[in-house]
């Protein structure tokens, strides 16, 4: 999980209905705040009270919450809505001028993707990931970490692929038997993508508890209560050949395989040819008729 913190850029947290990702997002937000970074949260899906729940006051004081939840489209016309709607709020985040490392959490990227065109959102994310000096015109000072919560079932392969191509890190949540798993894919420029799987749990204070577990990628976990079964035991037929059986099988000449020896044997029929015999023992009830049944045919 430390690789998520290595380089800035876009970090996609892909969750599902079964395995929700907001608690992991909050754990990352807490970690950023504890590192001394300022954290901006664009809250679209939950209220500010609900997002701040579980954080102590020292963490909450470092969080700047931009509330898109209460009135995103200005239906109440009470003046509480963020100017410019969702896109305006996102662009306002790009225009921050305070110095120092910053983490921006988008809760959620899915909400933004449902309400904004994909291309517009991707352009805004690119602009968001780069922090420019307030003087303008100078090269970017340092990349900004952008955490985006994405609900996998809501989007087609096109938008998901576009966001994946922009992301430096993708964390996909899943789990088995009550244990949460994070599949982490890191894509660094000029490096091979790295893939790891990490077992984890989120503690009540939103600290991240990393657990020892299998680090093989994408291996389904065998259920520990069922011992692995060897399928070739208790078979009624033989699956394996001994060395002698294998030699006998390899030396067998197939009846319809036409070899030169067979050709010679056919051209020169000799007395040593083995003839085949049928030995028949008549049954008590057999009716043996010595007459030729084809006698009446005029052939």
């Amino acid at each position, binding site marked *: 999980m430390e690789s998520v913190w290595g380089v800035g850029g876009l970090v996609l947290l892909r969750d599902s209905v079964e395995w929700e990702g907001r*608690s992991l997002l909050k754990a990352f937000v807490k970690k950023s705040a504890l590192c001394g970074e300022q954290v901006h949260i664009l809250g679209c899906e939950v209220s500010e009270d609900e997002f701040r729940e579980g954080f102590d006051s020292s963490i909450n004081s470092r969080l700047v919450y931009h509330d898109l939840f209460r009135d995103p489209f200005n239906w109440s016309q009470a003046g509480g809505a963020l100017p410019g709607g969702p896109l305006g709020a996102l662009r306002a985040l790009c225009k921050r001028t305070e110095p120092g490392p910053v983490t921006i959490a988008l809760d959620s990227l899915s909400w933004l993707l449902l309400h904004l065109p994909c291309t517009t959102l991707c352009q805004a994310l690119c602009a968001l990931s780069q922090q420019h000096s307030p003087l303008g015109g100078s090269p970017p000072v340092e990349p900004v970490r952008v955490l985006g919560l994405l609900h996998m079932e809501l989007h087609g392969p096109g938008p998901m692929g576009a966001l994946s191509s922009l992301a430096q890190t993708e964390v996909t949540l899943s789990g088995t038997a009550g244990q949460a798993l994070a599949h982490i894919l890191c894509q660094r420029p000029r490096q091979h993508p790295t893939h790891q799987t990490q077992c984890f749990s989120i503690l*009540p204070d939103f600290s991240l*508890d990393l657990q020892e577990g299998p680090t093989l990628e994408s291996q389904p976990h065998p259920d520990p209560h069922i011992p692995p079964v060897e399928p070739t035991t208790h078979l009624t037929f033989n699956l394996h050949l001994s060395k002698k059986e294998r030699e006998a099988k390899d030396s067998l000449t197939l009846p319809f395989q036409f070899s030169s020896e067979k050709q010679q044997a056919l051209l020169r029929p000799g007395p040593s040819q083995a003839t085949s015999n049928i030995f028949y023992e008549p049954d008590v009830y057999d009716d043996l008729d010595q007459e030729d049944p084809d006698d009446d045919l005029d052939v």
Partner: protein
Amino acid sequence: MLRQMAASLCTTFSPSTSKGVSLTAARECGQLVFLEGLKSSVDVFFRAQAEPHPLQFLREADAGNLQPLYEFVREALKPADDGQAAWRCPVLLVDDLSVLLSLGMGAVAVLDFIHYCRAAVCWEQKGNIVALVHDSGDAEDEENDILLNGLSHQSHLILRAEGLATGFCRDVHGQLKILWRTPSQPAAQRDRSLTYQYKIQDKSVSFFAKGMSPAIL
């Protein structure tokens, strides 16, 4: 003394005595506010309305959102002017959201309506929302899937009612899967989901563990 209230949006059924609670009496005393969608939709077409009707989208060729319906919910939550004690902890029951899709609303518009209802009912008034959505199952209905998944992600509790995998049964009508999605629950709680079977009776429902129906024990 604070009283509990319910605002109910129902597209098909009339309020009636159900589960031992007299909904008609509740409606008369103002505890229950009931929008009967089927009956009310006629008013959109045949009666002139000064203000936008809650179901105004039925009339418009290009209805973008469900803001009038949200305004109706908001209005219903306001305390009455008759000087009585204010209602508390409202419950919004929506039956059902899939009908709005088949009436021409987009999935995102329905999700936005529920979003605003959550802000008004759950956040402002500390109440609850119970919404019904149908799962299209094998039929690939993209809009319904977006609505179902979007609503699931907004929910703290998901109740999935489905038939038995083995077919119809006289004593067991179906199976209910309960999934908790509250992030603030302690990590030690491993029972994130439970499954019960149920039988619907005259005015109630009885639940039992899988395979433990009283009829077969």
